[in-house]
């Protein structure tokens, strides 16, 4: 059965975002998710940073201080190999979830 947890969904969004770019800071992730999803999805800052730290603990992402284009200091996050593996697992799990939910919704 698909694991249905919302935290897992946020993790998936972050991991996927990081997999498409080389390195991003927290603000960049928020903006990216919002833009790509046409403002449908909004990442709460209050959830994002704890999630980032937790994923860093788990070794899914690495963090490093760097400079933004506007020369501002920011912490940049990067996907690790373990993170890529985790992302694939989460992706699969999410697909299962969506399939299941859709089946219920379309049941007539």
């Amino acid at each position, binding site marked *: 059965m698909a694991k249905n947890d919302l935290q897992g969904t946020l993790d998936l969004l972050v991991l996927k975002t990081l997999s498409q770019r080389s390195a991003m*800071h*927290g*603000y960049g992730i*928020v*903006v990216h998710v919002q833009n790509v999803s046409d403002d449908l999805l909004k990442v*709460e*800052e*209050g959830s994002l*940073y*704890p*999630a*980032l*730290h*937790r994923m*860093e*603990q788990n070794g899914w992402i*690495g*963090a490093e201080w760097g400079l*933004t284009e*506007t020369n*501002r*200091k*920011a*912490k940049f996050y990067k996907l690790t190999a373990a993170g890529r593996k985790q992302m694939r697992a989460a992706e699969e799990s999410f697909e299962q979830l969506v399939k299941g939910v859709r089946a219920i919704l379309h049941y007539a």
Partner: protein
Amino acid sequence: MSLIRRILNLFSRSGLNDDIEAELRSHVEMRTEQNLQWGMSEREARHDALVRFGNVTATKERVIGADAALVFESIWADVRYACRGLVKSPGFAATAVVVLALGVGVSVAIFAFADAVLIKPVPYFQPSRLVGLYESIALGPRYHLSYLDYVDWKRENHTLSALEAFDGGPVALTTAGGVEQVDGGVITAGFLRTLGVSPILGRDFHEGDDGVNAPGIVLLSYGGWQKRFGGRRDVLGETVMLDGTERTIVGVLPKDFYFSPIGPADFWSPMRVQTSADSRGEHGITGLGRLRDGVKVETAAADFASIEAQLAKQYPDSDGGRGATVLPFSEIVVGKVRPLILLLLCAAALLLLIACVNVASLLLVRTEGRQREFALRGALGASRGRVVRQVVIEAVSLVATGSAAGLAASYGFMQLLLRLIPLNVQVEMPYLHGIGLSAHVLWFAMAVGVLMSGLLSVTPLARIFGGTMRAGLTEGGRSAAGTVWRHLGANLVVLELCTAVVLLVGAGLLGKSFYKLLHTEIGMEPDHLAMLRMRTPTVGYERETLKVALERRVMAEVGRLPGVKGVATAQLVPVSSGSWGSTTFEVVGRPSHTTKEATNRVVSANYFSVIEARLKRGRYFAESEDASKPLVTIVNETFAKKFFVGEDAVGKVIRFDASSPPIEIVGVVDDIREGALDAAIVPAVYTPMAQGPSGSFFVVARTARDPEEMLPELRAAVQGVDRGILTLDALSMGYRIHHSSSAYLHLSSAWLAGGFAAMALLLGVVGLYGVVAYSVSQRTREIGVRMALGAQKSSVYRLILKEAGMLVGVGIGAGLTCAVGAASLMGNMLYGTAPWDVGTLVGVAAVLGAAAMMASYLPARRAASVNPVEALRAE
């Protein structure tokens, strides 16, 4: 990288804070910048960014919450909480720490010894493959082999990859100052290679160095090299005079080289090849072998047994009746101390168990008092895991403190234990050098710590989760609380008392054995007897008559000393540590197919009267009986009883073998204990010095004064006879008996068991006190009610003492039963004392019973002095 940094963050929480704050601030500022670009005013832009972000502080806390450092920090908080709790109840904390430290200290110290003795006693290459080889004879399994037997063994066996031989003993070193006795080892050419030892300087012995005409060479021990040659590297090629022959130094052995069966010898010489056929009967060397891969000791033993059986058929005169003994080398080195160490290890384990049980019981009492606290924590939302963590941390803090103190104490215990071993015995135990807190020992301490932490966590947890948390809150943790613990605690105390009884009985029995041993009938009067061992000079006394003349001169010279009442000589004196000097013989007129064996001692004519032996039959030697007279001998009673059953031994004739002259038995003397104090008496024949002198013998003097004081005069007098005489150990008979290895073994084990028993007694009584005191505190209300209803003080005493008495009775009863069982197991450490020795058992029961009743009297008195009004009002 991050985990380490985060752990480090534990010590600089501000660093972590700053890091997160900076990250969040940069987020807000980037949003503000964006807003500015979209055309908001600066104030608006910042406001919007902050609103979107939400509560910065809360976010920061949540980020930190995701951080590993927080886990560490909360653990640290728990540790501090645990420590505060311990400091708040100093009585509990001190008792628990002291008890744990005692248990850890003793067990770690004993383990260090066990580690040295049982795990790494033999510092050679693949020590488990090394075996020692002996010939067995009627008197016992470990007797020397002869060189020719060794050669045959070496050639015929299929189970050893190498077989070498060794022998050790004093040699005379000629120095500028005169003749000096030094320890020497004699080894075959491949001996060191078999051990896996090679010289640090110069060369090892080669094949051919042992040839009959090969030049004399010698290896130095490291100690000898440093002491006698100042550690000079150019010592190779120099010569030394050993036993009158010149030897060239060819090498120096490593510093840590030590071979226990020989001891600390300074000079190591090659063993000469012996070829003369009659030397097969000269048994004087020991074999050292290395098992081939995959061969077991038993297989090798069978191999050599069949070889020796063949030799016995081939050479019945010299090898008849002899067998082969193959033993693991470690057995030879530590065989004697192994049972003692195992006993100690058991005792230490028991003590550790008692200590743990005591602390666990104290912890339980404490947990009772904290039932409400834990219930409250549960009610406020503490998860099971959280409570477990806190309890575990408390246990670990306690154990860590106790273990640290215990490790420090163990160092002291080790020194103490080392001091229980006399120096001359320590010399034989090189594996004890450098004993201390090695890696092995620290690992052991760690393992003990983990086990103790486990026990001390599980015990309170079982109590906490045994009853539900809510029940703890509502009932106020009073009335029902005690029952579980009372059962458990009572069982623990019974166990403790039982253990204390076992140890006390053990100590009592060992002490009694020691007393019996020292008062063993040795067949002579040991008081006021001074002895000095000497060797005739090698040059100038080749003829036997000259040796006899010298011996007479020595006796005359010593006899002139003031305070000397009588002087005699003997090749060896009673109470030897081994069974030295035995001979085979046959009875003339009886078929000689079975060779008989007896201990042989050469003594002066007046020896028996000087040592005050008891003549059973016949007569002593006469002064006039020298080589010109018919040969005579005196035998001991065991000899007479064994070989002349139902006959009179006096007048019978024996001879050593078919080629030697007949010897007439002229007397039977009461058994004299020639061997160890606790060894069985073996047949002995005594022959007169004048009819066959020995080159090395003891001068035995009966003194009027303290014999210890006489020793220097004795030595001076003997040396005054001839400067070439080598004088060796001088000692009194009393000293010899008290310091004989068997006496020492019994004394140390009695002391050790006594020490353990004292600790066990103390711990057991403390445990009992804890249980009874707890029971009283739980029953304060009940006692108050009883007293309010008219119960007398005496009935309250009875109530409490009856409860304690039950525990003590069961504990002592079970303990005595176990003790008899345990004592039967240590049967061979007991001497002249039965495992069920009634005096000891009754004594122990009385001591323990008295101590236990005292421990329960104190809380009983407190119970009896309960003020009923106060007890009821406290509700």
